């Protein structure tokens, strides 16, 4: 008889693999990509393609150069590429798209050790860095560039939030237009219906739980109400759905405990609304998520579940 294996129990593992999860995320992102292409045209597809290809290539080349194992098979670079593109306007120059994508993968993901080790979501960090970079480059606050009367060829994006903030109410779309996504914005953030389909698919497939998206969206609603804003407009107008379903739920950068997820989501909502109402940027979500990403280790420590029967003197009869 051939030598028998004697490795320790358990001797079977679930058929679920990391790349199955990532594939589900990619599937969930497809309705959003379709909506983005319909709304913004074929260039939305092009930006997404450039972003994905750059992410995949950067990861491949970096790991090859560092003589590390090829990890493209886990599909996480593809996910980052798509989500990053969804945070960009369809008219962003392709060189800027590629640069941001390479930065997200190499600096924000691989330099920290790759999948699972990155302290901030690479797509989110990429968006924030792109925004700051653009502001610096143009030497102006980005929304000042966006004169609603002119054609939309600036490098930044304008969401309806901008018009709202600027008091330009004629440019503010209706709730229905907002829900369908018929407005300016980044490729993936506008169509709430598409994001909802994708998000519910992720919940149905148990890739994500309700804790982060539901808490986040509900908190935005409540905080907007408290701060005297239009709550419905606030959850529909910016990138709340994209952030809540697809970016705040990033495994690597969100808490693993259920209570932690709720605390984290409320935190993001607080920062998002704080920036929206009191800040200069229109990127409340990105900075909310990045800030809370960095607090995840502490949130996890504070919300560690109570182990079964630990710390009990008597049985609960």
């Amino acid at each position: 008889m051939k030598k028998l294996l004697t490795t320790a129990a358990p001797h079977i593992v679930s058929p679920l693999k990391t790349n199955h999860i990532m594939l589900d995320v990619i599937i969930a992102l497809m309705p959003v990509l379709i909506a983005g292409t319909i709304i913004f045209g074929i260039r939305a597809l092009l930006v997404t393609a450039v972003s994905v290809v750059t992410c995949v290539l950067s990861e491949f080349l970096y790991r090859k150069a560092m003589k590390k194992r090829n990890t493209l098979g886990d599909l996480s670079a593809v996910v980052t590429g798509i989500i990053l593109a969804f945070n960009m306007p369809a008219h962003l120059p392709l060189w800027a798209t590629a640069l941001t994508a390479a930065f997200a993968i190499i600096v924000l993901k691989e330099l920290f050790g790759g999948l699972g080790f990155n302290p901030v979501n690479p797509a989110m960090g990429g968006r924030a860095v792109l925004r700051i970079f653009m502001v610096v480059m143009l030497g102006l606050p980005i929304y000042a560039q966006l004169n609603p009367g002119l054609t939309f060829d600036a490098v930044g994006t304008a969401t309806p939030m901008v018009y709202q903030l600027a008091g330009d109410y004629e440019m503010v779309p209706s709730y229905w237009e907002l829900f369908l996504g018929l407005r300016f914005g980044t490729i993936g953030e506008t169509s709430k219906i598409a994001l909802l389909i994708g998000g519910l698919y992720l919940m149905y497939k148990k890739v994500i739980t309700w804790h982060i998206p539901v808490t986040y969206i509900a908190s935005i609603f409540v905080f907007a109400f408290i701060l005297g804003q239009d709550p419905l407009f606030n959850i529909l107008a910016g990138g709340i759905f994209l952030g809540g379903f697809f970016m705040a739920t990033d495994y690597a950068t969100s808490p693993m405990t259920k209570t932690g997820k709720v605390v984290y989501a409320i935190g993001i909502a607080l920062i998002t609304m704080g920036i929206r109402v009191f800040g200069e940027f229109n990127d409340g979500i990105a900075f909310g998520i990045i800030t809370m990403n960095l607090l995840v280790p502490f949130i996890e420590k504070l919300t560690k579940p109570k182990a079964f029967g630990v710390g009990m003197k008597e049985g609960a009869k």
Partner: protein
Amino acid sequence: MMFNLFKPFKTQVPHWKNTASKQTEILPVPEYVHLMLSQHIGAPCQPVVEVGDEVLVGQLVAKSEAFVSAPIHATVSGIIEAIDEQKIIIKSDGKQAIDPSIKPPTIETDEDFIQAVKTSGLVGLGGAGFPTFIKFNVKDKSQIDTLIINAAECEPFITSDAREIIENAADVLEGIRVLADFLQVEKSMIGIEDHNAEAINVLNTQISGNAAYKNIHIQILPPKYPQGAEKVLIESCTKRILPLGKLPSDVGVVVSNVSSIGFLGRYLKTGMPLVTRRLTLDGGAVKTPKNILAPIGTLVKDLVEFADGYQQPPAKILSGGPMMGMPLDSDEKPITKRSNAITIFSPVQAMEHEELECIRCARCVDACPMSLMPVSIDQNVRQNNLEALKTLDLNACIDCGLCSFACPSKRTLVQNIRVGKNMLREAEQGGKA
């Protein structure tokens, strides 16, 4: 559908109960049996026979003076062929002649009952192998109000407990009645997973037909591994949480495996000590999976031969099921009192999976029945971070392995929790020295 969206992710271990409807077959007497001197939790036994001695079925062959131990009896009639530090080998004469001194135990007092259970050599037949007489001998019987019979059988493949109920329900119920009487409990519960329709039916019929069994309740449990783990079962049946480091009797319950109880019922009638056991032989390498009643000490290869041999080369042989079973290094190893199953993997089933980086998906955290954070423990074990490990309640881990099963990156989580437990134990001992 809408409701389903909000349900948490549940890691579901497969059932694979291929042998659920297969009547137990009696193994023809094997030529040799190897009786391990340590086949229970506690002190190994010392032989009381010598090479060349003739022995009869049920005759005492090894015992220990230690408190935590269980005597071992000859499981075939024949001649002691060899004795070494680990085992006694008996060559069978094929007659299965029974020791004439065997008679039903006379039980008048509580001490008689405990002594009888001790003499029978009974240990937890669900796989734990803890000497049963110690479990039954609770300090203060007035504390106990519930007897829980563990028929959950949550491991994949294994159906031996379910077959015990279906084929020997009368013994099971009689065992419960006597034990409940001894413990003076009002209520007995049989915890069983809901997919065992046949066993549940048999129990229902027999309970409703006999007034003596009116205090026995069937507690139908959701099929969720590790439903049969003692702490989980107690909570499922009584909503009581067993505090870490405490015994079931501290929350008013005694838990016993259903096959152990069935044996108890038979033993009180016949006095025949524990010499055979029912086990499930299954796994991809086995040609005809089946339930077998075999003398304890039978070699695995004899079981396989009885099941028409291997259909694929064996790659891994487990005493027990695939979640918690003990790997054996060859099919020339014997079954013990603890072997509720022999699971033999084909090469495909035994395939090792490449370990990938943790993606922090938290499936292990959601899966852990003890609400631990396996991923954090694993990380700190790998980083040798003792201080962090001390805060992570490793001792609450019941070793069920659901974290490792659930992990999409195929990380060896429970395996590293075991390493972590050792690290903590060593640190504690080092600190004392």
